[in-house]
């Protein structure tokens, strides 16, 4: 009975003391700012900054290899907090928001789909059950992908809650139809369609799709809209969000966000 106790006890003491000496020898000084920065980051580990989680970004910021405003999800608020901890000034960055480039709520089905209820699965079967091959399938892959609860399926069609959206980009990769685009919050006019079908084909299946009539192109004073491949495309460098094309668009494909964002308190865009 005695020897086993002595063996384990003695070895335990010996190894314990060895580790104590080693820990003194190999002690690493950890910068206290890492913990504080990690504390102010959102903590959702979305990876939009390109580093391994919020802890990775915190270390990179302290190390100097990442910018204080590198957190995409946190936006300016977090950038300011991180900058305060680091004692530097945050550079201003345009806040982005996810824009859904489709509003075809009432597009009919081509066939009866009875498979797995995800957009990516439905998309594999001849591009999904909807008549429009470019539009939203409506099974809500984006809603499931959003880590910030900013996308909700309302009557089978996704709505982006722009107050919650942090532009992390998860929905952009989740959507098999590539309908999401991250665009600056300061831009208030967007084409909400991605269909490259001819105007005639679009008109048959969707009331709100771009029919490539070219009226927006004609009315724009800033040369910011062009119809390419049967679809109106914005040049956001030139667009001033004046809203002339919104009024002109016969199918209401081009949508103005000004009123809606004013209501949500997102416009005018706050600068810290």
């Amino acid at each position, binding site marked *: 009975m005695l*020897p*086993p106790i002595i*063996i384990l006890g003695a*070895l335990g003491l010996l190894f314990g003391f060895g580790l104590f000496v*080693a820990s003194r*020898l*190999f*002690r*690493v000084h950890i910068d206290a700012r890492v913990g504080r920065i990690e504390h102010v980051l959102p903590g959702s580990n979305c990876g939009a900054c390109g580093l391994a989680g919020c802890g990775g970004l915190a270390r990179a910021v302290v190390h100097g290899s990442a910018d204080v405003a590198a957190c995409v999800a946190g936006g300016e608020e977090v950038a300011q907090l991180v900058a305060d901890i680091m004692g530097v000034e945050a550079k201003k960055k345009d806040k982005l928001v996810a824009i859904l480039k489709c509003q075809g709520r009432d597009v009919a089905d081509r066939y009866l789909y009875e498979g797995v209820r995800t957009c990516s699965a439905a998309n594999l079967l001849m591009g999904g059950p909807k008549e429009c091959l470019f539009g939203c399938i409506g099974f809500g892959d984006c809603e499931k992908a959003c880590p910030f609860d900013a996308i909700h399926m309302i009557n089978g069609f996704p709505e982006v809650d722009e107050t919650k959206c942090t532009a992390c980009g998860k929905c952009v990769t989740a959507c098999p139809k590539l309908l999401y685009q991250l665009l600056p919050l300061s831009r208030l006019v967007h084409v909400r369609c991605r269909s490259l079908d001819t105007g005639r084909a679009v008109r048959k299946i969707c009331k709100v799709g771009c029919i490539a009539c070219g009226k927006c192109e004609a009315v724009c004073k800033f040369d910011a809209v062009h119809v390419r491949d049967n679809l109106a495309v914005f040049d956001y460098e030139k667009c001033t969000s004046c809203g002339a094309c919104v009024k002109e668009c016969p199918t209401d494909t081009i949508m103005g966000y000004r009123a809606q964002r004013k209501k949500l308190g997102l416009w005018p865009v706050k600068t810290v």
Partner: protein
Amino acid sequence: MQSYILLFISIVLVNNFILAKFLGLCPFIGVSKSRHQAVGMGFAVIFVMTMASAVAWVIHHYLLAPTPHNIFYQWLGEGKTPADFDFTFMQTIVFILVIATLVQLVEMFLMKAIPPLYESLGIYLPLITTNCAVLGVALLNVSDFGMLRNASESFAKTVLQGFGGGVGFLLVIFLMSGVRERLEHMDLPRALRGAPIAFICAGLMALAFMGFAGLGH
């Protein structure tokens, strides 16, 4: 001399810990995503295995095994035989203690010396403690060489088997990481991406390594 060379080749290729004995599969799949990580893990395992073998041999020979060198036999053994001082039932717990200590040591050293490697190994570094290959080599040494009459030969073969086991681990995990780096860029069916195709590749590698069994003939 010949027996040492044979022992080394046998443990590296023919009786490879991963692909022939199927020990240590957790880090083999977990850390073989990039070559850099795999090599770091490989060397950590070589260190732990070699040191664990040596320390475990000393403990086994002088404390646990019923040999004339057993210090309890020399201390209390008057009028008794060495067989009365057989504590080999404590092998597992004592070896785990040795391995855990060594892994802690490696962890501290890596955190100080190579922080990026420490980061990338993540949880798999402390998991070497429960890596069955390391405990496996310690137990295997005892059953293979523990009862050799010549203590110095027994010690040398033990350390060589530990070192060879680590080298075999490094070799296989390095080969695997090369394969997996290429797999990253392959256009695979989604269901096979990641771990499933890695398992298939590991199986094929194990089949290929079975070919080394013919080396001895």
